[in-house]
């Protein structure tokens, strides 16, 4: 059983909480410590960015994180080393990479190296379902689970393809825009229902999560989990202890969690 499937089993209906961090931000040592802190705070799964110079799907917070990592001289190979170290310390926690197409195609054997480091899934922000098939084939050959993005404006015929190609989970975006610019609180139950109808892997909302009420709203819309990125990255950049933020967001995924 894959680490994601095992995680959903363990959670037994409780919402999954994914913490996103940019690998190498602001440097390798701090980055490794932040990954551990995310697990300590209660993250069920970790999503990691491999920094790219031109992240068109990202807002200012994640852009700045990528820039800090690149300015620190972080290379793709270093990112795999960070994942490898994390995998040794946390054998059960699923790890997914979120990055851009050019990072993937520039490295011969990217999928193999990612798999060998202990990566479970890969989402390529600028590869839509239309272009995904060759990438998905390579991922499956390497033993990595593909994750595709489904948006509220994605038509049914594309959602069917996304449902067929995705494995670990389905990354849902409820509204237009880039990361870190959503005010949260509005999650499209219709998207979740359409994905469920097509038999997609568990839907997880990925944009617009920064407060416990957003987590509850996303789960109320039928999602099986949430991923929080910009809020965590921003908190880390301010030098705060991210475990507190993660603990409060994770708390909102529990079945007995009620709005205060």
């Amino acid at each position, binding site marked *: 059983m894959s680490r994601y499937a095992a995680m959903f089993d363990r959670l037994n209906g409780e919402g999954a909480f994914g913490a996103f961090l940019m690998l190498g931000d602001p440097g390798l040592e701090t980055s490794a410590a932040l990954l551990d802190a995310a697990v300590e705070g209660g993250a069920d799964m970790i999503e990691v960015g491999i920094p790219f110079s031109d992240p068109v*799907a990202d807002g200012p917070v994640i852009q700045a994180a990528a820039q800090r990592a690149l300015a620190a001289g972080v290379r793709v190979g270093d990112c795999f080393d960070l994942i490898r170290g994390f995998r040794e310390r946390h054998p059960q926690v699923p790890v997914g990479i979120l990055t851009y197409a050019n990072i993937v195609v*520039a490295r011969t054997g990217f999928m193999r190296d990612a798999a060998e480091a202990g990566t479970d899934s890969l989402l390529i922000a600028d590869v839509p379902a239309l272009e995904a098939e060759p990438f998905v084939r390579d991922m499956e050959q390497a033993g990595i689970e593909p994750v595709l993005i489904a948006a509220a404006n994605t038509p049914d015929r594309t959602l069917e393809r996304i449902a067929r190609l995705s494995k670990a989970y389905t990354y849902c975006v409820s509204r237009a825009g880039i990361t870190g610019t959503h005010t949260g609180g509005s999650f499209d139950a219709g998207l979740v229902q359409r994905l469920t109808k097509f038999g997609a892997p568990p839907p997880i909302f990925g944009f617009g999560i920064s407060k416990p009420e957003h987590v509850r709203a996303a789960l109320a819309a039928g999602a099986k989990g949430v991923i929080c990125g910009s809020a965590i990255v921003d908190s880390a950049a301010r030098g705060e202890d991210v475990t507190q933020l993660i603990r409060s967001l994770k708390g909102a995924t529990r079945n007995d969690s009620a709005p205060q």
Partner: protein
Amino acid sequence: MRLSGRFGRFGGCYVPEILVPALEQLEAAFLDAQDDPAFGAELNDLLMNYAGRPTPLTRCRNLPANIYLKREDLLHGGAHKTNQVLGQGLLAKRMGKTRLIAETGAGQHGVATAIVGALLGFETVIYMGAEDVERQKLNVFRMQLMGAEVIPVESGGRTLKDAINEALRDWSASFETTHYLLGTAAGPHPFPTMVREFQRIIGREARAQMLEQLGRLPDAVVACVGGGSNAIGLFADFIGDPVRLIGVEAAGKGLDGEEHGATLLRGRRGILHGADTYLLQDEDGQIADTWSVSAGLDYPAVGPEHAYLKDSGRAEYVGCTDAEALAAFKALAESEGIIPAFESAHALAHALKLAEEKPESIMIVGLSGRGDKDVAQAQALLA
């Protein structure tokens, strides 16, 4: 999508899923418009009676006489950019959009977009690298004068590629009301195909004019390549002819160093701004900083059809340094009374080289824009 959007193995539509419906809508509007005589008639009317087409094909009198200049510098707005912004502007109307966004480097495409925004009544927002805003104050003012808002982009290297990133981010949130009027034959499908079709008129006219003036086809057509819209527009109608197609890239301070914009000559295949194409990048796939004296050629990617024409061998691509371009800029001004854009001076510089090697060779050079925007820089460089 109805078309493949591929040029051999290049091209495609590599954008976040959220933008795919907007690109599908654009492709549909473009294809429907191609079949609509009313659209063609309106565009043609604007091209002739507003923008000033056809542009002349001018034989050099004092430079080698076998060089013919296709005078896009005489088009309204001062460059070939106007051809395709009129086409995309009409498509945006057809789709019911009320707002245009565009990226610009030196400001030529921003000015062209501001022109169409004013003419056709759009709210217009231009993203421009903060570095370029500083360097091109006059063009910034021209855009503002025509009612466009210019937003300086502070991210990344603060130049053209960062302006494209920012325009794509805006579009991800605004596509319902907004058309992204991309400025060159690059980016995700359908832009490379659509922009080529709107620029094809350059080569179509030049070919007919040469047949009329000389009764024969040229031996070669030469155009500069940044993103590649003026080159693909000039090449398109010659692709089936026995004519050499030569694209001239910015060799900047020299192809042996890192300070150039010669994507096809020194780049490696990759994916950026929606397309599979050649890129200047490092080993990890991080996009490189580029350099050219001409801001319009200072771009680390290139239109995917050029990548295909290079690999298939149908077109040749060469480099021209800042110094060679500057010498050609000066020569055209002194000998013919025409001040070319720095971009176009790259094409001319290569044509002058060819004319020395093969004086009998008849060439059409794409004079893609006029040099007014560059005179301050030229004054400093030639001093």
